[in-house]
């Protein structure tokens, strides 16, 4: 396995980790917060909302824009 394949595998494992965390959160909400709940709390203030939405705009620019 070369360096590129190792990197892709690690990214895949991290994505899988996110899916597992969300599944655990849905089955045990008292132990783990779902992504929606975490975002809801983070976005309860104007600064939080603007910060999160800025992150979203940045994602679009980074992957598609200049």
């Amino acid at each position, binding site marked *: 396995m070369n360096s590129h394949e190792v990197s892709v595998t690690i990214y895949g494992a991290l994505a899988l980790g996110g899916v597992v965390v969300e599944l655990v959160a849905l089955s045990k909400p008292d132990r783990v917060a779902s992504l929606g709940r975490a975002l809801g709390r983070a976005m309860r*203030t104007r600064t939080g909302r603007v910060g999160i*939405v800025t992150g979203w705009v940045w994602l679009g*620019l980074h992957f598609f824009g200049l």
Partner: protein
Amino acid sequence: MAQRSGTRTGAGSTLRTSGQAQVIVVILILAGVFDAISGNPVDALLLIGVGILLGLFPGDPEPEPTAEPSIRSRSRRVIVAGLAAVGFATVVGTFERHSWPMTAGILIPGIGALALAGTGAQQRRPGPPLELRQLLPWITVAVSLGIFELVNLLLQPGLTIDSYDHPTLSVLWDGASGGLGDSIGLLAWITLGVYLVDR
């Protein structure tokens, strides 16, 4: 817009909110500086600009909304937003990646969403406060991803030179085919934005 009920007051809550706001401002400006160094001037301008604006005009703690939109109203909004999202992805997906038309296609809905986030109130109840242990798995995943991205970025021949052996996520994405892949990616991106604005 959702109605507001009583105010949430208290010096502790205000200080905590103010501290969190400062953390967000610092993160945005630092990320913008690193983006500028990495040769992404538009990304950097966005992050630093929003960071400065939030630093100059911090928001006050807000009361939580008391009423959420009805299921009927929400369904209608979901259908309209879904159709608009598919139209957006179909049209903007035809533009060349990393071009000015594509950048404009990202910035127009992006700035609109930022304006809504900056001027509007939260649409839904944020739910009860969360404890750190409930967030720890997400923090672990996010920090691990950030560290791995940073390691790969630093293993590149230069900050502005991509590496096949040590790809960042954007390098992997750039290696993927355009066309339909771009439209699908844009659909996922705009759907996430609609979800965030609706929070």
